[in-house]
């Protein structure tokens, strides 16, 4: 059972991100659903995760994979019913798994009843729920986000004969938060789901809620005021709930979304993710150290969310041009792998299926400050299909076994919402939960053990971090500390064996105990502490004073 009184639960969470559609199909229609997800909760529990982040499952024309919501308070018929969702939620809670759902507050689908009413006439009572203009030259300083598809942030509405504002696709009109009725309606949506029992919201596209002339229309004070008011109401009427911000910005800008602990509880650390990939490829800790040095302190009750891959492209917006070029040349040589300003690939193919590198990245994910998110399928090393359009190549069905449709669905293969991965390296016959469960040394079982070790200490989830500066730049070493508990993490970022001398004089007298095997290492003395590490090897040492 989830501990309902644990108000900082999100700090200790290990979040698993999935799309209901992609996980398990219980009614053989080729599309995953909540009943199917419920059946797989035991698997998720055995993996060790304790929170789920569900991508949008609301009624939607599905032109943006559900991020174009047409009705905020129902479940898309493809995925089941509201009752199915409630049954799943109860089952998850009974296994100690919290559930975070996704809300897109910035915009709706153009099929949403609010927009249909707003566009019906200029006199409509809902007209002012969206942002309209007679010209398309307002807010010119706002950048276009989906560069590959959109030419402008304004789209012409032939029905009401005016332009409407959209920061994302043109079929996703932005809501007008200058209208208090919109805020009340959105809070009503949140209350609806909170009353159903969800544990939190991942709020999509947060920086863009408000527009102001002469600005880039991102991160405006008015947007923060809206978030503060939502948080205030959340705290007043509910306990133990979470707000997670999606704000793809530099750390200094994102940290503003924590406010004084009165806005979001958590926010994604977007710039860290590409730099983890960069550091491993460069075999140099510099990119990681630099971005963490630029990361400001955040309020005690807040937490960063960190991740390796997710449902979107690996975003390269928060990198320099030099870094972006390097990432493209390294991880997306084939132009097909690129989308917008990013790379639409999964973790394992990006690592050339090198088990050691996949593990190293996961070790970094699990040991750096923040709450880690595991994207579905990455725990078994699933591949991608870059020949599917948009970001669908990383949203293919979960691979449960080597049988019919990989155990995902009993439907005819042609009916699946997406083709399965079936190539010889990453195909479901080779990569699946069943076979990896049976193999003690599989990536899946390694992930389970690693998550278990991570959960064995709150140092990882709540502790401070102090970086060591050994002269060997290929080694990234840090000490995490929480109260009197200390953990030393040493990572070899390179493909070759490395020796490293660590300045551990501050921990003189401590005995390092390697956490996976619980083996003792020599006591730390006056001399630099010498370690040798194999290619991409990592150590987690608990430092004990005995």
């Amino acid at each position: 059972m989830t501990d309902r009184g644990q108000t900082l639960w999100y700090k200790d969470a290990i979040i698993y991100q999935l799309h209901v559609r992609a996980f398990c199909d219980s009614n053989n229609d080729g599309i995953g659903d909540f009943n199917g997800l419920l059946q797989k909760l035991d698997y998720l529990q055995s993996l060790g995760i304790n929170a789920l982040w569900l991508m949008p499952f609301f009624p939607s024309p599905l032109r943006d994979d559900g991020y174009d919501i047409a009705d905020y308070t129902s479940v898309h018929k493809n995925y089941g019913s509201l009752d199915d969702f409630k049954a799943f939620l109860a089952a998850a809670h009974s296994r100690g798994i919290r559930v975070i759902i996704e809300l897109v507050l910035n915009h709706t689908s153009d099929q949403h009843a609010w927009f249909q009413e707003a566009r019906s006439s200029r006199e409509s009572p809902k007209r002012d729920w969206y942002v309209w203009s007679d010209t398309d030259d307002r807010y010119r300083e706002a950048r276009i986000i989906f560069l590959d598809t959109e030419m402008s942030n304004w789209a012409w509405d032939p029905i009401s004969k005016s332009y409407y504002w959209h920061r994302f696709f043109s079929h996703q009109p932005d809501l007008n938060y200058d209208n208090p009725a919109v805020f009340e309606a959105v809070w009503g949506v949140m209350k609806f789901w909170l009353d159903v029992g969800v544990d939190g919201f991942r709020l999509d596209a947060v920086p863009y809620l408000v527009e102001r002339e002469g600005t880039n229309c991102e991160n405006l004070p008015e947007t923060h005021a809206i978030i503060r008011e939502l948080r205030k109401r959340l705290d007043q009427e509910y306990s133990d709930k979470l707000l997670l911000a999606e704000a793809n910005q530099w750390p200094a800008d994102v940290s503003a979304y924590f406010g004084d602990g009165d806005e979001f509880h958590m926010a994604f650390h977007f710039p860290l993710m590409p730099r983890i990939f960069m550091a491993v490829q460069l075999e140099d800790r510099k990119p990681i150290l630099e971005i963490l040095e630029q990361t400001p302190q955040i309020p005690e009750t807040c937490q960063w969310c960190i991740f390796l891959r997710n449902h979107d492209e690996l975003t390269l917006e928060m990198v320099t041009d030099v870094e972006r070029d390097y990432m493209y040349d390294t991880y997306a040589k084939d132009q097909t792998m690129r989308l917008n300003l990013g790379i639409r690939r999964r973790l394992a193919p990006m690592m050339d299926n090198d088990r050691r590198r996949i593990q190293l990245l996961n070790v970094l994910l699990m040991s750096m400050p923040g709450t880690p998110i595991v994207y579905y399928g990455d725990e078994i090393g699933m591949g991608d299909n870059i020949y599917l359009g948009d970001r669908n190549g990383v949203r293919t069905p979960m691979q449960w076994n080597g049988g019919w449709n990989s155990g995902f669905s009993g439907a005819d293969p042609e009916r699946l919402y997406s083709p399965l991965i079936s190539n010889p390296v990453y195909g479901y016959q080779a990569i699946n939960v069943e076979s990896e469960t049976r193999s003690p040394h599989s990536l899946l079982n390694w992930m389970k053990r690693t998550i278990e070790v991570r959960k064995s200490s709150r140092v990882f989830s709540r502790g401070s971090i102090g970086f060591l500066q050994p002269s060997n730049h290929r080694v990234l070493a840090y000490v995490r500390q929480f109260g009197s508990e200390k953990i030393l993490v040493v990572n070899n970022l390179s493909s070759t064996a490395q020796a490293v001398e660590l300045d551990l004089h501050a921990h003189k007298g401590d005995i390092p105990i390697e956490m996976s095997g619980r083996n003792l290492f020599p006591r730390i003395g006056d001399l630099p502490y010498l370690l040798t590490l194999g290619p991409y090897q990592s150590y987690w040492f608990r430092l004990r004073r005995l």
Partner: protein
Amino acid sequence: MPEEFLLSDDLLRQLMSVGEVDLLVGLPSHNNAKTIGCTVETIEETFQHGFPRERVVIVNVDGGSKDGTSEVVMNATLPKHPSSRGLTSLRTEHRIVTRYAAAPSPGIAFRTLLAAADLLRAKACAVISPETSNITTQWVGSLLQPVYRQNFDFVAPLYCRPKYDGLLARNLLYPMSRATFGRRIREIHSTELGFSGRLATHCLNQDVWNTEAVQVAPETWMAITAICADFPCCQAFLGPKEPVAGSSGTDIVTAVRQTVGTLFWCLESQERVWMERVGSEPVPTFGPDRELSSQKVRVNRKRIFDLFRSGVAELSPLLKSILAADTDAEIQRVATLDERNFHFDEVLWTRTLCDFAAAYHHSRLNRDHLLQALVPLYRGRIYSFLLEHQDSSPDEIEADSEKLCVEFERQKPYLIERWNAKT
């Protein structure tokens, strides 16, 4: 006695930490605290703008500075550009500082750099002198690029010089090395150069490091080694070279002993190569292949002339043992000329040098004494050059230099004849 090693344990430790690099820039130093910080910053800037992805290291090999040179190297910091968010170079930019115990020695410093390049498996290396005050990012990039991107193994610099600067190279080193080794590389003796890791390893493995010629002018030896072993060579134009203000420079006697001594030694050690080479070939050049500025350098011509005359008089017996009889007679005649009508032509100068090189080879007298005996004659040639070119344009000087080079090539059979003559 404990065995002495070229590389200290501390340096080895630093090299281990760096691992492997793409680019290495070496900075030999001795009491350069005033200027070396700026040099380090320029190199870092080159790395950040020109090679942001590459694995890079700066290696400072210090000959026992007392002015905090090493500390300046370690602490030099390039101001961060505000728009870059501090993220310009992708990788750690390494700096290694090492000192050697002996007195300042170009040979030890250079060999240490080669060893570092070898152990770090550097792809491209450059050596920069902290004695030069106007180093730019273009300099460093020009020395590294041909090696790193175009597979050259040796890059000689080309400078924009005032017309009376670089006279030793113009009147002796270039024409003689060009005629003998067959490659038109203008600056075979320079404190700035670029080279590949391959060439570094090749040079490091030669059993020459205890010879004085290599110890005093290792860069010259490397240039000639690269030419003789047919490593792809090129030249890169760097621009004007300005020595640090107050720098005393090297006196002409020392300069001749170091550079000409090394050139003569290389003639001996590479005898089989140059004997077979006929004529000369240009090498690829990045940027202008010559650029003389009309800026004049003050020289005391009277003193040069007097030192020539007195030198010839004092060294007359010595010159007789070095020079062929007709050459000696011509020198004695020239020494009687009035300073206003003085002329030491290219034919006499070429034959003089051929005689000296042969005498060096036959060890007719102490080699150091022999090189010192060349100095007054070099002064005579320079006085003649200054007299003839006081109003010459850069193009006229270039034409005259080319004439001298052609004369050297024409006289190469004479050199071989003298070289092979039984003593």
